[in-house]
């Protein structure tokens, strides 16, 4: 066994501002060249653990610690945050937020500049690091000229430039589309092989991380380590279900079919998975036993877009090109596609934030062009991704009442309407709370409530579940489904393929300003051409179906979704 590089011994930590410790009795060793995934639901302490490893704790966030944490045999207290940063390189979650330099080259050079590395060496090392992550052709680019994946490469180069021995990734997949996420995991794997660095990944998207080999998974819950074992062992146990982490979809399907997951089946990835004839038969039998969901009756068209064309001033290419589509009343619809494909612009045209140069938009036989932003908002609500971008009041009640008050509704009516909305949104118990006391997910609910108070017939949500763990994700999505059952049309712009598969009835796939597919989600996520063009990822269920000798694997994916919805509904 190689030397330990990070050693926690009976380590505990409590933030100064909090009454309870965040970490209890952590015992964890990471050795040179290892690849460790740290998983756990929100609030389990995994980010705090990461902060301890890179030195933000105790040097930026203050608190009381107990036990010991050694990096390369030295106590972190002696090393200081700058000492630790020589050994541990951190790639943070938000690739945009951590981009410091005005250009790629300057950002990569940042750590070296702070070390006073001078001229020829500085340029040469930046070159070398940029080649490692294959960004050397973009050295002069500004951050807004790069895609999310490229920005992440720059962040990676920015820590690689220092020849660190540990690479720490804090939710590396959170802001990437599925295909880019897949490439990111491949890149991390390759970098590790080249440099021999230890890699620690903090992530709750297990299936996506396991796309490449991982030595160990450390599962956390409520500030403690619940399991520290190989992926195969972990996936065969019941730890995941108990701690509210989503297991890989193909395993869920196997469990539905009554297959017991055993470590020797190599459950850690769909590629490695081996199924004996008996298991395959169980899955086939399950497929044939589950009845297909009944077709839903066609509902009237609510929103009709005809020949839309739009380009931002100063940009040559059209962001939306000759786009026509329909959204039906009461639908639960997903809009997917890469960044810049025109998804957000399409929703901005609907809400009236931008005006199309060609084409028309009709909402329930009314031409939207005749309506102002405010008037459209009475029909179609828009919820931004980050709730902090919408909240401007101190109290929940006032925030939800804001839109009604600006519409000069009498105060007693406002009260009645807000109270009703708060009840629908499950915020009634918090009605007299200040917003600052709420969690991120609850704030999200407040912003949705503030839009619902206007009683729109359709709501458009930008990445409704971004940054949420499985439990909160399920909460939000069940809430949206409940709204949908009340007859509100729900349109979600998303990168999350699970969300699409599990909840959306239909998907509009955008690519370069056009809709390249308009069909049910199972069809989208099993079609290689669409997957490639829209930067999505094939669902592992499809391969599972094929492995088990099902001829119509797409029907299998559909069956799984129908069954899953039944399970959730009951």
């Amino acid at each position, binding site marked *: 066994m190689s030397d330990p590089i990070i050693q926690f011994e009976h380590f505990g930590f409590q933030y100064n501002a909090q009454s309870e410790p965040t970490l209890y009795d952590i015992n964890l060793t990471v050795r040179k060249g290892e690849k460790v995934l740290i998983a756990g639901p929100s609030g389990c302490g995994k980010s705090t653990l990461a902060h301890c490893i890179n030195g933000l704790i105790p040097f930026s966030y203050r608190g009381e610690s107990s036990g010991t944490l050694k990096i390369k045999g030295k106590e972190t207290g002696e090393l200081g945050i700058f000492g630790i940063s020589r050994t541990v390189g951190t790639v943070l979650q938000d690739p945009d*937020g951590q981009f410091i330099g005005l250009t790629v*080259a300057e950002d990569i050079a*940042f750590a070296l500049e*702070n*070390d006073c590395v001078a001229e020829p060496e500085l340029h040469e090392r930046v070159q070398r690091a940029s080649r490692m992550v294959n960004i050397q052709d973009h050295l002069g680019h500004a951050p807004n000229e790069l895609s999310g994946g490229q920005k992440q490469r720059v962040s990676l180069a920015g820590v690689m430039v220092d020849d660190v021995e540990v690479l720490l990734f804090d939710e590396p997949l959170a802001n990437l589309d599925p295909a880019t996420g897949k490439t990111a995991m491949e890149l991390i794997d390759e970098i590790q092989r080249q440099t021999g660095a230890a890699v620690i990944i903090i992530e709750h998207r297990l299936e996506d991380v396991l796309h490449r080999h991982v030595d160990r998974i450390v599962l956390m819950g409520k500030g403690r380590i619940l399991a520290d074992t190989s992926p195969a062992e972990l996936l065969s146990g019941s730890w995941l279900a108990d701690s509210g982490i989503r297991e890989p979809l193909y395993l869920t399907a196997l469990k539905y079919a009554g297959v017991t997951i055993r470590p020797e089946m190599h459950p850690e990835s769909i590629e490695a998975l081996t199924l004996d004839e008996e298991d395959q038969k169980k899955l086939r039998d399950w497929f044939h036993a589950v009845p297909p969901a009944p077709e839903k009756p066609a509902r009237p068209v609510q929103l009709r877009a005809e020949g839309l064309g739009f380009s931002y001033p100063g940009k040559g290419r059209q962001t939306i090109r000759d786009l026509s589509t329909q959204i039906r009343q009461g639908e639960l619809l997903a809009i997917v596609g890469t960044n810049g494909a025109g998804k957000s612009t399409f929703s901005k045209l609907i809400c009236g934030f931008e005006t199309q140069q060609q084409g028309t938009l009709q909402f329930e036989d009314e031409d939207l062009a005749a309506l102002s932003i*405010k008037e459209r908002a009475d029909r179609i609500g828009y919820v931004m991704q980050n709730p902090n971008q919408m909240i401007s009041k101190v109290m929940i009640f006032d925030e939800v009442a804001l839109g009604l008050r600006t519409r000069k509704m009498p105060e007693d009516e406002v009260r009645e309407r807000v109270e009703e909305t708060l009840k629908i949104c499950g915020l009634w118990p918090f009605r007299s709370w200040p917003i600052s006391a709420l969690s991120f997910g609850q704030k999200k609910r407040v912003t949705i409530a503030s839009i619902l108070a206007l009683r729109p017939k359709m709501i458009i949500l930008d990445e409704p579940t971004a940054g949420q763990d499985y439990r909160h994700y399920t909460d939000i999505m069940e809430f949206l489904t409940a709204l949908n059952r009340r007859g509100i049309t729900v349109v979600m712009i998303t990168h999350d393929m699970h969300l699409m598969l599990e909840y959306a009835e239909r998907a509009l796939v955008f690519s370069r300003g056009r809709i390249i597919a308009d069909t049910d989600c199972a069809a989208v996520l099993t079609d290689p051409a669409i997957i490639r063009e829209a930067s999505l990822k094939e669902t592992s269920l499809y391969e599972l179906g094929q492995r088990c000798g099902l001829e119509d694997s797409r029907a299998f994916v559909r069956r799984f979704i129908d069954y899953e919805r039944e399970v959730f509904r009951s």
Partner: protein
Amino acid sequence: MTNIFNYIDRPSPIHRLTGATKLVCLLLWSFAAMATYDTRLLVFLALLSLVLFRVSRIGIRDVSFMLGFTAVFMVLNNLLVFVFSPQHGVELYGSSHVLLRLGGRWIITKEQLFYHLNLVLKYLATIPIVLLFVCTTNPSEFAASLNRIGVKYTIAYSVALALRYIPDIQREYHEISQAQQARGIEMSKKESLVKRLKSASAILIPLILSSMDRIEVISNAMELRGFGKNKKRSWYMARRFTRWDILAMLGSALLLAAAILLNVYNGGRFWNPFI
């Protein structure tokens, strides 16, 4: 997206000077132009700045917006000076050659016109050089330049960061204001000032809150990569001084010296042709 640094990359000797040189020259030049009202020197500076503009290959069209803006400001400034102190020239130069009586105190004199000429020349001597600096200095190099002339690098870097984040914050402001308009926050000029201030808070509070998140991320990212570790740091974009840098700075220093010498020789800031 507009940036306050409207850097235009063109091959020219002015672009090749380091940012630090250009900053020093700008400071020396503007001190010179501020120090004196000597018409001869101001004419010389104005002409020289036009020549430099030519050399830099920056066209009038590239800076037309800023030029228009300052032209309006200049006209306004002159008008106000005349309205409020029409006899300022007479007081300064100690003689009065009347040209036209508009009634009351408003008498047009040769002295007053000459004073206005100097005022206009001051604009002509400084504005082009400021625009030249803005258009020919790579923003990436600016922080390094500030650090070079003695500003602490932590402060210099905050300037660079502001430049980095201005486009992001502009975009975010735009997005927030759209979403808030949908909720009925009126930002149009039809509303009263009080109402608009109230509306502005509905946009600014979310903007500030999300900017705070941003600041936390960036300061962590910087600290994790060793910002503030040493008293000094190197700069990726820093460039070595060449002969031309030294010459440019010497030339600018000479201009300032000339301005000071003329002030001594003239016995004040004004050159008086009326004696």
